């Protein structure tokens, strides 16, 4: 059967380069603006693109509505994580956190408000920051990544208040358990650790790969994504995506998804998850039904 040949457009040097860039692009992080109308996405080239959700989701959406409103080079390395406060967008990648004003970002050529680097032990290679977490009650930001530690930064003063040590390999993801308040972190070492923010001590450790129901040795033991709903936790990565009951530290449901999951979140009563390794952000409006994709 002949495969339909797509139309070949005469491409100059720049068009070829852009096409190749898009083919090899990975979007690592995304964040919705405080007003809810814009989505910021960060990719592996260090660029941040702002999409207009209201235009893309409206009934008259055309192809151009799905293109970014503005794109700029934010970091030198990949932008691994982003999080939004009520006025700022915080992005982190190669070792530093930068803050941007949401109101300013839509204009071309905007500059970062500030940038901070947590105190690292090694200076040979700058460790990446894989996860950012906002703790609204203390108005602080938790960073975790390549140096296997969790750093807390006070958003008002910009000083680094605590360092939580315990992981043996770099940290992939963070989640906040609001009631306690506790922070959960999952890492390359295969363990999910719970930390108490008031005492700055590790409270609980779950070594996921040691449980037979969910471990998949051929994938590895790393925990790629984490989400918590105070009593429950979902985590996945090398091992299969599993729902845990926290107090008893037992796995309750194992989701039958084959690919290692990269992002997961609780939304009302549904679990939304994405395992993207392309330049597209898949928007799931219902579990299992993909509405459309936003593309760089």
């Amino acid at each position, binding site marked *: 059967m002949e*495969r339909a*040949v*797509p*139309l*070949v*457009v*005469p*491409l*100059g*040097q720049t068009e*070829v*380069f852009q*096409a*190749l*860039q*898009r*083919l*090899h692009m*990975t979007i*690592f992080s995304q964040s919705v603006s405080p007003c809810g109308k814009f989505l910021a996405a960060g990719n*592996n080239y260090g660029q941040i693109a702002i999409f207009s959700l209201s235009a893309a989701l409206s009934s008259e959406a055309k192809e151009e509505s799905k293109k970014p409103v503005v794109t700029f080079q934010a970091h030198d*390395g*990949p932008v*691994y994580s982003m999080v939004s406060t009520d006025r700022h967008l915080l992005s982190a990648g190669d070792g530093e956190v930068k803050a941007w004003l949401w109101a300013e970002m839509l204009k071309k050529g905007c500059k970062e408000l500030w940038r901070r680097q947590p105190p690292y032990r090694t200076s*040979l*290679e700058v460790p*990446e920051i*894989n996860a950012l977490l906002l703790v609204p009650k203390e108005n602080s930001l938790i960073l975790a990544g*390549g140096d296997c530690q969790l750093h807390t930064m006070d958003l008002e003063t910009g000083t680094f208040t605590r360092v939580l040590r315990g992981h043996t390999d*770099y940290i*992939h*993801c963070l989640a906040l358990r609001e009631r306690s308040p506790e922070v959960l972190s999952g890492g*390359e070492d295969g363990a999910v650790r719970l930390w108490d923010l008031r005492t700055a001590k590790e409270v609980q450790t779950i070594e996921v790969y040691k449980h037979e129901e969910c471990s998949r*040795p*051929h994938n*590895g033991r*790393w925990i*790629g994504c984490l989400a918590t709903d105070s009593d429950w936790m979902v985590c996945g990565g090398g091992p299969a995506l599993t729902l845990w009951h926290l107090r008893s530290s037992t796995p309750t449901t194992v989701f039958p998804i084959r690919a290692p999951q*990269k992002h997961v979140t609780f939304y009302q009563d549904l679990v939304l998850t994405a395992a993207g*390794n392309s330049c597209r952000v898949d928007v799931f409006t219902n579990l299992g039904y993909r509405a459309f994709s936003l593309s760089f």
Partner: protein
Amino acid sequence: MSSESGKKRKPKVIRSDGAPAEGKRNRSDTEQEGKYYSEEAEVDLRDPGRDYELYKYTCQELQRLMAEIQDLKSRGGKDVAIEIEERRIQSCVHFMTLKKLNRLAHIRLKKGRDQTHEAKQKVDAYHLQLQNLLYEVMHLQKEITKCLEFKSKHEEIDLVSLEEFYKEAPPDISKAEVTMGDPHQQTLARLDWELEQRKRLAEKYRECLSNKEKILKEIEVKKEYLSSLQPRLNSIMQASLPVQEYLFMPFDQAHKQYETARHLPPPLYVLFVQATAYGQACAHMKSSQPPRQDKTLSVAIEGSVDEAKALFKPPEDSQDDESDSDAEEEQTTKRRRPTLGVQLDDKRKEMLKRHPLSVMLDLKCKDDSVLHLTFYYLMNLNIMTVKAKVTTATELITPISAGDLLSPDSVLSCLYPGDHGKKTPNPANQYQFDKVGILTLSDYVLELGHPYLWVQKLGGLHFPKEQPQQTVIADHSLSASHMETTMKLLKTRVQSRLALHKQFASLEHGIVPVTSDCQYLFPAKVVSHLVKWVTIAHEDYMELHFTKDIVDAGLAGDTNLYYMALIERGTAKLQAAVVLNPGYSSIPPIFQLCLNWKGEKTNSNDDNIRAMEGEVNVCYKELCGPWPSHQLLTNQLQRLCVLLDVYLETESHDDSVEGPKEFPQEKMCLRLFRGPSRMKPFKYNHPQGFFSHR
């Protein structure tokens, strides 16, 4: 007392009656001029009113007398008769009175009439006088108005304005003192001045005419002189030929070429002129060489000039020929009718006919290889085509995979993006093709040459898509603006193809030729090695399962060249499908990988393979090497070998499988995994020699 009055009157009457007979005669003798009747004098004296009373009284008396007579007659008697007689005599007297009165009345009337008549006549005379006078008055008035309206011719002349007149006219004409006050004199003076001026101008005009005649005569003389010059110059040129040859300045040769160039069709002519100009400009810029000896670009015209001249034969000759050939044709058709297909074939051949002259350009590159371009013009289609050939200083042994690199068919493909030269650039040709059943020009490009867009531009032909023009004329400025870039692109194309040619020879032997100035990009020890390098067909590339992304992105057209490389280390086999764009090396080759080691890994199921592709496809600028970046492909292949090494050595050991790792880690890496995607360290850092993440 009528009778008394009658009596009174009677004597008057009688007297007048008695006398008239004599008086008449007397009076008529004596007073002949004035009065015929004596009563005429009486009329003035008597009062008409009393006469009227008398008349009335007389009539009454008569009536009475008649009545008495009647009475008497009716009574009868003797003395009646006397009475009657008396009365009769009285009535006769009354009759006389009446008659006189009658005469008086008539005379009065007549007098009255005469007086009226006289008066009337007078009045008439006055009236007539009045009419005459009025008529004269009218006449005079008319004359006056005529005189007043009279426009003398002098008013039609446009005189100079008063100020100018006083300024310019000499004082003896303008006479300011007199003329200022008196407008009549002023006008006269002005007219005088006008006359003066006109006389002077008429003089001038005559002078100018005579001048003109003189000058015309001089021009004639000079023209004759110039025309006599031409044959003399020709003879000098002839005489200078041996001198030209001696000095290596072949003006004559160039002149002959220009002569031939006159017979070129317009687009070829534009190309010829622009290319020669460019060639001379380049030669001028190289000051180290003796002038005009360094010919990086040489232009020549080939073909038969006679045939070109024959195209424009005068109509009578061709008609004669036609009639002859028609006669011949008729004879042949009677014997054997050519089939419809043959007729169509002839029509096609006619449509695709080339002009007998062609322009040949030879581009010499630095390494003494030459690109020979022959440009043709298709007359009926109004497009130009080109055939290309590359010759090198030394004989080239063509490796198997390099077959298409320098082939005349494809060496110039896509010089500009998208310019594949398989379709005719002139939109009007489609209608002509439909008539003779030609589907597309690409069937004939092998013999006719390729109608690239840049070829049309060099010939000054522009076919705008939005407004198809009726006739497209060759434009020099279009050709001039594209000449330099096109020549440079042609040279880079030839050189890059030749470089690839050499590299392919080495690649087929399994050696990736990395030049010394690119060694720093790679670590000293590279274990994976290239095993195979072959060409694959476009269709085969499209069928491969791991190339779908490139195909979907529209980067795998049929103008590209496709190759398959195989890199091996131990049990691991890495297949790399390569898309080589004709615009190499400004457009990088695109690699798609498929690794066979513990299962099949491609970019769809292994992010690290995707990262490896990104290292060679996206980060190619680091691998370009020194300009003109002919090392790009070989550097990319070498980097792939390095990446395979890193991949294999950093693969995490699966605890469930027994046995040692097949590839012990030899590369120095700071961290094995980084980031949420857990990438391997593919970036090589020079000169420290360790691997890190991007």
